[in-house]
């Protein structure tokens, strides 16, 4: 299972004020606050940890079919080899790409999952462009990976607002044991923020 999260750092500067009274205390554990306060670039660290928590939450909420808002329950560990996020004895592995402009984090439940992922810049930051471009790119990638026509790929949301992919396998193998019709894949993740979008799915 996977989860991803994108942060447009330029937008984060104006959209959120992490220095606001109470913000750090609501989101980060004392240990994480220490990391944030002891680094030269607190701003980037805030959003790196945030994106790690978000990505891990996306997996956890799918795993346990639940929804809640408790960023502090997800404890981040920064290590040179492997960053992790833990909640209730469960540890997720995260990897992040950080530039001056953005952060993209990918969290996985298992260390060696085979994943297709892409991160891209959007034409503008309107919600429709963010949403439509990210969905379009994901559909194209799914079509390519699973060798189905892109018109047969659908992205839907479950009752918790969590997206999953559905695609129709062609009318091949009608006699085979595999039932024709829709194949559902739930290990996908979509994220967009500001001028950036990203998707990831388990192959």
């Amino acid at each position, binding site marked *: 299972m996977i989860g991803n999260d994108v942060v447009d750092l330029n937008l984060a500067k104006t*959209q959120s004020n992490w220095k606001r009274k109470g913000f750090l205390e*609501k989101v980060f554990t004392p240990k994480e606050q220490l990391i944030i306060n002891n680094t030269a670039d607190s701003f980037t660290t805030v959003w790196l940890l945030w994106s790690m928590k978000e990505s891990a939450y996306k997996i956890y909420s799918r795993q346990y079919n639940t929804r*809640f*808002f408790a960023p502090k329950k997800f404890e981040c560990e920064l290590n040179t080899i492997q960053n992790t996020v833990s909640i209730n004895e469960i540890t997720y592995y995260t990897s992040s790409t950080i530039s001056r402009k953005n952060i993209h984090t990918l969290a996985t439940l298992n260390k060696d999952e085979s994943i297709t992922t892409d991160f891209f810049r959007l034409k503008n930051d309107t919600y429709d462009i963010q949403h439509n471009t990210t969905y379009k790119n994901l559909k194209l990638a799914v079509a390519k990976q699973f060798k189905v026509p892109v018109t047969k790929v659908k992205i839907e949301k479950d009752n918790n607002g969590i997206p999953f992919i559905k695609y129709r396998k062609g009318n091949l193998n009608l006699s085979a044991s595999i039932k024709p019709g829709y194949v559902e894949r739930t290990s996908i993740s979509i994220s967009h923020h500001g001028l950036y979008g990203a998707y990831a799915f388990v192959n």
Partner: protein
Amino acid sequence: MDKNELIESLKKIVKPYIQDEAAFENLNEDTDFINDLKINSANLVDVILDVEDEFDIEIDNEAMEKMLSVKSAMAIIETKLAEK
């Protein structure tokens, strides 16, 4: 404070963070902050801090977990106000 007043003050609080105008115009008890109003999850922290300031209450971790919709926010505010 009656329900309508409470919804109105919540509406004022979430306004700066919403990304879906239509859902905002139709805001009601069943409106979801993230799925309907498309509030960025980092801004949900701001909504919570604004609610604390506006009503002079403290939203603890347990209450914060449920702050995903207008209905649950209203219930939390009512409970915390009653505790005062």
